């Protein structure tokens, strides 16, 4: 449990960061900038790992992991978790927008319908749209 403490701390911090991403509101330009910086960093690291595999292994041994490939796998796992969190957030946002839109349509139609039923505006004899029956 307490061997290789450095890599464990790094990975746990990564997992915690992902969890915070999931439970905190993270929209706005600042967060977009951070996301993009992280992405650039990720690309640079990937290029370095390809060009200088020996260096990757040295970094891996420094943090207490045997091979560079293992470090790569751990990093990828955390990055993947972050990706899941980010897409979850984006999906929730989209869902809420769709709900708002659908609600406006539903309310508009209901209020419109009611006015026609009580009043005598044109179109009161029109059939209802067939949303529910289709």
């Amino acid at each position: 449990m307490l061997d290789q403490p450095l890599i464990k701390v790094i990975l746990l911090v990564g997992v915690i960061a992902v969890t915070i991403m999931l439970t905190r509101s993270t929209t706005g330009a600042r967060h977009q900038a951070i996301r993009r910086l992280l992405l650039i960093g990720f690309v640079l690291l990937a290029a370095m790992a390809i060009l200088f595999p020996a260096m990757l292994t040295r970094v891996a041994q420094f943090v207490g992991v045997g091979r560079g490939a293992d470090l790569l796998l751990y990093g990828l796992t955390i990055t993947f978790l972050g990706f899941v969190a980010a897409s979850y957030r984006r999906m929730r946002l989209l869902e809420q927008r769709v709900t708002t839109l659908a609600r406006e349509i539903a309310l508009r139609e209901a209020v419109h319908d009611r006015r026609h039923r009580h009043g005598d505006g044109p179109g009161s004899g029109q059939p209802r749209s067939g949303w529910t029956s289709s």
Partner: protein
Amino acid sequence: MTLSPPLEDAWLVIPLYNEAPVIGEVLATAMTRFPHVVCVDDASTDGSAEIAERAGAVVVHHPFNLGQGAALQTGIRYVLEATDASYLVTFDADGQHRVEDAAEMVERARREDLAMVFGSRFLDDRTDPGFLRRIVLKVAVWITNQQTGMRLSDAHNGLRVIRRDAAEALDLKQDRMAHATEIVLQLGRTGLPWAEHPVHVLYTDYSRAKGQSLINSVNILIDSMLK
């Protein structure tokens, strides 16, 4: 309570999703006391909306299925925007709530000047939810109380009376079932006076079959924690 007058200034808000076998009867009973009812049809596929319309309820149609929380919010918006009701009552479509309880709760809100009255099945021992369901409901209450800072005895009860000023503060973002916690949270934040009222929940074979499966409480729990 014989020959009670109809409640003209209260609207029932009923989220409706595939309840065709019972909704006609539920509405017929409810409308003896509550002449104003809005059903939010969450894209039912079994003709529930037509039955509700024939029974005389206002029906708001969601273009596709959005979930019970979304339907509730739509119904609340309808009452606020299209009517001048003083109170709205959230009510389940499956017939598990008693209309007398709802009417008593509105009268109590009026008498005691309360902005919201929550129905609770655990204030007396009339309701028998069964052993396992009781445990799950109690856990849900505990979690809701932790999250909202309120002290309720029953969290996931669909019967609530909400006064207009309190309803205006509601903006439910949980489309599915986790809205039950969210609604308590948002109402609690208004700081308006509230009370719990003992109600009897009628567990019929129908409502048991249609109601929340226990495994779905996992979804509710996680939905209410993630933002």
